[in-house]
């Protein structure tokens, strides 16, 4: 199936230019993980709704992270005709965006929307992205904006030397530990167990990790959290203590990983950017840097005892001698 065929009535008519008629003239400026964003062309109800979700107060424009770029990625919203989009039977269907990776950017298609963003770090505050949607209700439009912004943020992190990771972030002694894994690996379970013993959970869905320049990394919380995330930590950042790849098992054990295994564990949990062949080298470079940190496998059974094993030294993985790993 070719790009956007699943969602668009006429994929070949995907807009080439970042232009069209906007539903309104409201704008919204905010920061995600220290990166500045601007949305333009919003209707008043959509702006109000999105502001409540993305920028609860003016501090959303500030971050404890060293700003990698204070320049805004400006995206404008445009009206699309309902006839531009296919009716998709969503019952029992897993929603996944469609991507067209290009040398200069990425195009996206989803349910009743499509978007395009240029993928260089902004050098001036000009419109670099566009969203076309036939949706009008504020909560539906916000869903589109969030999907789009997740992708844009993943790329801005990548261009700044960092990554956005599917992960649960838990604060232990003031530092963030990331528990990574695909859907079903146990991120939400770990987060719930952490809450149960009084640890703070930043998110159980997506977290941003950025290098500081002195060999350490910091984890920044973003509004796109999971079910158990408290909202008062949004916009803050914490030193990254370690990363654990979750492997559900009968018992609890930490396993040290070789360098390649570390990177292999990480590349699977970098959503959106890990399938982009145009920026593959950049991702690998960033992950090689991140893999210099403490990255281990964590076999765990669903009990709070799993946090006990984090205090003990791991043993070397036993599967490194085989050709197949």
């Amino acid at each position: 199936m070719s790009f956007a065929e699943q969602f668009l009535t006429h994929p070949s008519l995907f807009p080439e230019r970042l232009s069209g008629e906007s539903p309104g003239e409201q704008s919204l400026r905010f920061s995600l993980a220290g990166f500045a964003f601007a949305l333009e062309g919003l209707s008043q109800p959509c702006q109000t709704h999105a502001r409540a979700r993305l920028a609860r107060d003016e501090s959303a424009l500030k971050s404890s992270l060293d700003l990698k770029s204070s320049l805004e990625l400006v995206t404008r919203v445009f009206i699309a005709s309902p006839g531009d989009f296919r009716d998709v039977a969503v019952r029992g269907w897993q929603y996944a965006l469609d991507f067209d990776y290009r040398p200069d950017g990425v195009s996206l298609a989803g349910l009743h929307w499509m978007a395009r963003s240029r993928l260089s770090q902004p050098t001036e505050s000009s419109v670099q992205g566009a969203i076309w949607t036939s949706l009008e209700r504020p909560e539906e439009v916000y869903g589109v904006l969030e999907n789009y912004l997740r992708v844009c943020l993943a790329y801005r992190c990548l261009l700044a030397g960092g990554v956005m990771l599917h992960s649960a972030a838990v604060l232990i002694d003031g530092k963030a530990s990331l528990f990574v894994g695909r859907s079903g690996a146990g991120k939400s379970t770990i987060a719930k167990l952490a809450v149960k013993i009084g640890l703070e959970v930043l998110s159980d869905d997506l977290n941003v990790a950025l290098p500081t320049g002195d060999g350490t990394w910091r984890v920044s919380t973003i509004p796109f959290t999971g079910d158990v995330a408290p909202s008062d930590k949004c916009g803050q950042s914490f030193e990254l203590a370690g990363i654990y790849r979750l492997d559900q098992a009968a018992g609890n054990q930490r396993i040290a990983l070789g360098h390649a295994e570390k990177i292999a564990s990480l590349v699977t949990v970098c959503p959106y950017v890990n399938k982009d062949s145009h920026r593959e080298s950049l991702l690998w470079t960033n992950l090689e840097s991140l893999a210099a940190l403490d990255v281990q496998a964590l076999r765990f059974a669903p009990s709070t005892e799993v946090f006990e094993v984090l205090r003990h030294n791991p043993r070397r993985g036993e599967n490194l001698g085989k050709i197949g790993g």
Partner: protein
Amino acid sequence: MNDIALNSVPTRRPDMRFRVVGDEGIIVSQDQAEVIAVNEVGARVLSLVDGERTLGEILTSVGEEFDVSSETLERDTRPFLSELVDSGVLGVHVE
């Protein structure tokens, strides 16, 4: 498991990406959403998979570079490559 003959030519599937990291290697299969880390010998074997060399030629090259008997190399490599073929990471054709 498919056993790969020495005159077979292993090929990389279009969605397969392979990267050497230090002495090791990482295979990423986009379609299968699978990532596999391999050791130094596995990485060298895969770096020689170019759609032109036969398995026999690959084993000869690797055997010259590493201090390992041809029997051991063949015994370890053929099942390894067969697994990758079975999992859709590699293709194979016979010359």
